[in-house]
């Protein structure tokens, strides 16, 4: 008789899900189903709303990463209105977005996914969480983690209006300018973030890479999926969080396609499965073949790890150093002058998160406000 294991709900991430695992007579996994038992229907209730309301409605898709949805909707407004934000507005947006990914990656590494490693995969379920992390690493280090989240949420609130569900996005601009004092605070925050990223890379090194059991787990086939990789790249083909084109590489690392975000519907489609409210996106030009690995399956990943998989190295020297180390640890060969063959071991995503955070936002070095900088609007 088939034995069934139900994981309900899945935990330490944003969103609802359950997993049904069916075992065969030998006790091995026969089949697994991931179900999303939740639907709100933004596709429908956004219809009839004002275009400019989208940044404030679609950010409620996810309150862990509302900044991403707020920015995507704001950029869609740029396109709808046919306006290009002035340079200062773009830089403020990028600074805001950079504070977001620094705090978001910190949240994930220390509170969501990371506790599996920091507290340990065999630790009791009641300890695999942010509070367990703090007891493991000590209150002082715990406070360093909390301080990183706090200072970046402060920047998000200062530039976006609110720490969760910001509101400053406008077509062709951003409603909040920054003062000279605020600029200094942002710069200081960015510097502290880089120090914190280096600290986190060291913590990853000490807690994970120096533990042969964990390394074996990371490098094992259990968590390996050979899929297409997706990420946003700048004009140099390098990692960018705010702007650029979407690049996709195939499981071997060959560039499959690079397109402007507005052309997404030519490249992506979604299929519907009867047992989940979630729709399943895939690469349209490859096609949906089910949950299959490999070059013939349209399944792709868009994660901190795949952002690096598509990038022609990293834009700054220190990040480049950590990037090189990660790809050589996994034994990846170079597929271009600066890019390595993709890593498909999903647990490496944690490593990629901390490496990305050692990249300062490009806007940081080039932003020089005038004393009378003002709110930017289109028109």
């Amino acid at each position: 008789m088939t034995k069934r294991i139900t994981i309900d709900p899945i935990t330490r991430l944003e969103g609802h899900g359950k997993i049904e695992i069916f075992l065969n007579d030998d006790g091995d996994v026969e089949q697994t189903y991931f179900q999303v038992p939740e639907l709100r229907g933004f596709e429908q209730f956004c219809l009839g709303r004002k275009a400019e309301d989208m940044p404030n409605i679609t950010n409620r898709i996810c309150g862990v990463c509302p900044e991403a949805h707020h920015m995507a909707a704001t950029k869609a407004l740029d396109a709808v209105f046919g306006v290009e934000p002035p340079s200062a507005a773009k830089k403020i947006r990028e600074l805001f977005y950079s504070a977001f990914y620094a705090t978001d990656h910190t949240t994930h590494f220390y509170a969501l996914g990371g506790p599996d490693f920091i507290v340990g995969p065999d630790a009791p379920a009641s300890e695999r969480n942010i509070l367990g992390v703090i007891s493991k690493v000590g209150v002082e280090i715990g406070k360093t983690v909390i301080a990183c989240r706090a200072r970046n949420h402060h920047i998000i609130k200062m530039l976006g209006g609110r720490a969760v569900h910001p509101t400053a996005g406008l077509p062709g601009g951003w409603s909040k300018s920054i003062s000279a004092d605020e600029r200094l605070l942002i710069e200081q925050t960015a510097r502290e973030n880089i120090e914190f990223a280096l600290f986190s890379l060291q913590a990853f090194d000490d807690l994970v890479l120096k533990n042969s059991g964990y390394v074996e787990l990371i490098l094992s086939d259990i968590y390996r999926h050979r899929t297409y990789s997706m990420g946003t790249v700048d004009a140099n083909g390098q990692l960018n969080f705010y702007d650029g084109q979407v690049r996709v590489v195939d499981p071997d690392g060959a560039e499959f396609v690079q397109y402007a975000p507005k052309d997404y519907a030519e490249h992506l489609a979604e299929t519907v499965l009867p047992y989940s409210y979630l729709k399943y996106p895939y690469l349209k030009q490859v096609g949906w073949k089910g949950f299959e690995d490999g070059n013939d399956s349209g399944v792709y990943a868009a994660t901190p790890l795949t952002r690096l998989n598509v990038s022609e190295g990293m834009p700054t020297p220190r990040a480049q150093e950590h990037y090189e180390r990660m790809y050589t640890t996994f034994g990846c060969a170079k597929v271009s002058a600066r890019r390595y063959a993709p890593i498909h071991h999903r647990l490496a995503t944690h490593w990629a998160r901390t490496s990305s955070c050692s990249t300062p936002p490009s806007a940081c070095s080039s932003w020089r406000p005038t004393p009378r900088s003002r709110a930017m609007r289109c028109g």
Partner: protein
Amino acid sequence: MAAKPKISMYWASSCGGCEIALVNIHEHLLELADNFDFVFCPCLLDTKRHDIEAMDDGEMLITFFNGALRTSENIEMAHLLRRKSTLLVAFGSCASGGCIPALANLTTREALMETVYGSGPTLDNAVHVVPGPTTTVPEGDLTLPVFERTVGTLASAVDVDYVIPGCPPESAQIWAVIAHVIAGKPLPPKGSVLGAGDKTVCDDCKRVKEEKLVSRFHRTWEIIPDRTQCLLEQGIVCMGIATRSGCGGLCPDVNMPCIGCYGPPEGVRDQGAKMIGALGAIIDVQPMKDMGEARVAAHIAEVLDTIPDLAGTLYKFSLGGSLMQGGLATANAATQATTAESTAR
């Protein structure tokens, strides 16, 4: 040492922003952990539903319940957590007012399903699969919760002790409530709003308020507003005047209007009705002085036409708890009563 009281946070139809707002109490998290056993929170902790089912009734001192009631599972969890919690708090705008998910009450379940699974621009669904309650796969049956006809608030299904409004509630306000409980101070009467003020956002907003006389309304991208003057006086539909205080006036601080996420102020049941009253009161009557009745009506209509989508603007966060509840409240209540009956022990 006596066992610490248990505290939990659950999400129904929600976004996870309430959880991040809780984590954003930052260093106070350590005090929270010192004073409470944080037992359930799918976003942050590995506790499962069966762990909660195994608890004694009333075992948890406080549950912060966020999210609206969209599916039968949301309603089941509302009943389960009601039973297991001494104090059940409707946390955030979804649980208290329906929030963004309740905008779906402006349409029907059928239309929503058709858009999501039948006609989306990137959809590949030629055989028109629509996810449903039971799917038979070779290994057995897979189940999904029922997608209810409409979106309800927490109070539409179960008895609620307190409300903490906001989308999400501001972290300083969340901590103030928790610190109040830790200090052992008495709680206000059941049904009270916690973690917010009893006035309006305007009372906290730093902008200068003078005379409100508006000849037309402006959309946020139509004008660059003065940075110090009241936004409503400048013709931007700022919901501050019909929204409970508590956030400190954050959105007007970055030159954007209040969008009403703290819900109706004290003593007001319907936020949209309050706002429409306020808008009516500020339309400049001077140009209408010598107009005939028909022209006056046309003029007012013209002014109001400068605000498209009144329902989505004035009820963005409170439709589920409003007097009209999207117009489908009766059907919703009937569905929820049936579901509640079938899930009761």
